[in-house]
């Protein structure tokens, strides 16, 4: 929803207002349900917010510093992960959904699997870097204050098991949870798209059902050496499928709902309530003002299973964003937002770079110096590096690879609308 109150590109059949659920189905079955913008027309808001999510994820992965106060997780329930997964679902459906319509199920699946492979390779690459860092820290760091915490390095004693488990995506160090989630979601994308082509609303309903079942029966994926996947794909798929559903015309059908003032006030009220709750985490004195009964009902707000409160917070945030940031907002072309948009356009690369820079940042803080100013410096230079790298990548795409004319003309290329992570 970050993008989409208005139809991305109008098709005659879809301009009918449809509010109630069964109406929506009718429209879906009577007119082409899937609406795509003209090739080459980028939805800059998607790029903008994905770029923003990448920056925020990077900052959240670093030790807290001044910039941490600018990340949205401090002001509400949901955080950058929600934005990232939603936009990923949206763009993936957008890119590969078109491929499925034009070239058929098999070709689209093949392309999706190639993308999955790229993400997997990226994940393994990051794991290698992580291993290098950890091995170094484990041998050089010996502070008696943390002799217990250093026990976490014990996995290095059994590389045979650990590395195999990492390749199976079951052993994932902290901060390396998003890509495995993304791999699993993408792996199921062909089925999701195929169902969407049949009945988009039914697919969304099935997804919500799976989410409910996951909560009810407490389903999860186990991890190594114990515990569960930090982001439970069975729950987080809801956001991904919802993104896909919006891309497949759902957003357009919701436009009436999104432009209603009632929706806006409900969203604002919820965002404000969530903001107040979050404040009690950081200003413990405020905690006393909060009724016990609400606390007991609300906590814990579960990130692993995408708590309903988080999901609702994301929806409210997205609804407000879409309302107040039209897709033709001139600011989207401003040079000030260019770095964000550039990063959002090369999301897989920049995401991986961000994870790497977070590792590197921790390393610099640990080995060189750890003051508050250094923290700020590390964060800001990380963001500048991400921007620089995004610029280099787009330079490659537009200039260095120009000779290979084919790359540009393949529809459904994952990077066209940033189908990547």
């Amino acid at each position, binding site marked *: 929803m970050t993008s989409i109150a208005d139809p991305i590109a109008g098709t005659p059949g879809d301009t009918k207002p449809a509010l109630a659920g069964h109406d929506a189905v009718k429209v879906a079955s009577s007119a082409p349900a899937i609406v795509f913008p003209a090739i080459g027309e980028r939805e800059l808001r998607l790029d903008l917010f994905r770029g923003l999510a990448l920056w925020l994820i990077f900052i959240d992965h670093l030790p807290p510093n001044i910039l941490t106060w600018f990340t949205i997780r401090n002001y509400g329930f949901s955080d950058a992960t929600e934005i990232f997964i939603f936009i990923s679902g949206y763009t993936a459906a957008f890119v590969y959904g078109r491929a499925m319509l034009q070239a058929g199920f098999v070709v689209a699946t093949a392309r999706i699997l190639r993308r999955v492979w790229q993400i997997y390779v990226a994940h393994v690459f990051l794991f290698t870097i992580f291993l290098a860092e950890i091995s170094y820290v484990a041998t050089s760091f010996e502070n008696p*204050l943390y002799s*217990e915490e250093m026990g976490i390095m014990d996995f290095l004693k059994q590389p045979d098991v650990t590395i195999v488990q990492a390749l199976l995506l079951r052993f994932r160090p902290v901060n390396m949870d998003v890509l495995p989630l993304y791999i699993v979601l993408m792996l199921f994308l062909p089925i999701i798209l195929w169902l969407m082509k049949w009945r988009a609303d039914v697919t969304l309903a099935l997804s919500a059902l799976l989410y409910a079942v996951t909560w009810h029966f407490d389903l*999860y994926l186990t991890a190594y050496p114990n515990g569960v996947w930090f982001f439970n794909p069975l729950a987080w798929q809801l956001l991904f499928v919802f993104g896909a559903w919006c891309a497949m015309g759902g957003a357009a059908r919701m436009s009436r709902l999104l432009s209603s003032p009632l929706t806006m006030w409900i969203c604002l009220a919820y965002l404000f309530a969530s903001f107040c709750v979050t404040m009690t985490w950081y200003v413990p004195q405020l905690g006393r003002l909060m009724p016990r009964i609400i606390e007991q009902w609300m*906590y814990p707000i579960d990130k692993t299973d995408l708590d309903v409160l988080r999901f609702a917070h994301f929806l409210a945030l997205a609804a407000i964003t879409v309302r107040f940031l039209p897709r033709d907002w001139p600011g989207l072309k401003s040079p000030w937002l*260019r770095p964000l948009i550039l990063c959002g356009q090369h999301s897989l690369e920049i995401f991986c770079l961000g994870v790497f820079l977070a590792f590197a940042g921790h390393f610099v803080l*640990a080995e060189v110096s750890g003051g508050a100013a250094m923290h700020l410096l590390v964060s800001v230079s990380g963001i500048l590096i991400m921007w620089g790298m995004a610029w280099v990548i787009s330079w490659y795409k537009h200039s260095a690879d120009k000779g290979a004319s084919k790359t540009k003309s393949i529809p459904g290329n994952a990077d066209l609308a940033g189908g990547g992570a």
Partner: protein
Amino acid sequence: MRSAFRTVLAALLAAFVAGGYARAEDAGQSCDVPAYLLTSESSLPKVAEAVKKAQPLTILVVGSRSSTIASADASAYPARLQAALKERLPSTPITLSVELQSAKTAEEAASTLVKLVEAKRPTLVIWQTGTVDAMRSVDPDDFRGAVDEGVVALQTAGTDVILVNLQYSPRTETMTSAPPYLDNMRVVAQQHEVPLFDRFAIMRHWNDAGDFDLFSTAHGSDLAKRVHDCLGRALSKFVIDTAHLDAAQQN
């Protein structure tokens, strides 16, 4: 775009320099804890009663390896707590024992609590937990269940309880995810009206304020001893404030 870059760089440099000056000023070694980190809505009625009636105060610390310093037990926070309490409550006999349960999760520790309490009959149990669970990434729900069970067992056994959460450990932050365990301990503490000594937030405050450089690779136990001394003193203040002992002493 180039000029934008320059502006950002200049701003960054300015911030860096300003930050450097600010840090140089407050270089003095101290370990004050802001009041809000030592405030709890819950209370310690058994402790208050014991001190009021001048009965002996028996404290049992149950914890994992971060409740001690290898080969320097007497400098670890439990011993420092005892010393600080004796200083503040000279008329109360205070005994303190430590039950180390290294490499045990909250669930494993919880099952031993009742026996420990029966054996030692403490007035107050300080239960430090969470570290092992975070390292093994135990399911946070299971962790909450275990802490809950342990706290209930202690309360039914008739002791006061203080929960102590994880250490702030910036070096292993990329490897362990502490927040779910911190959150769940806070939830249990709220539910059972048990005071929570927020060791994590306190140590992070010291690190941010520049009192301690917890990123330090220092070998040797000097840093550990200083941190534990500060933790022990902060914990003694927490016990005295939460049990309202200053008032009790005056009566």
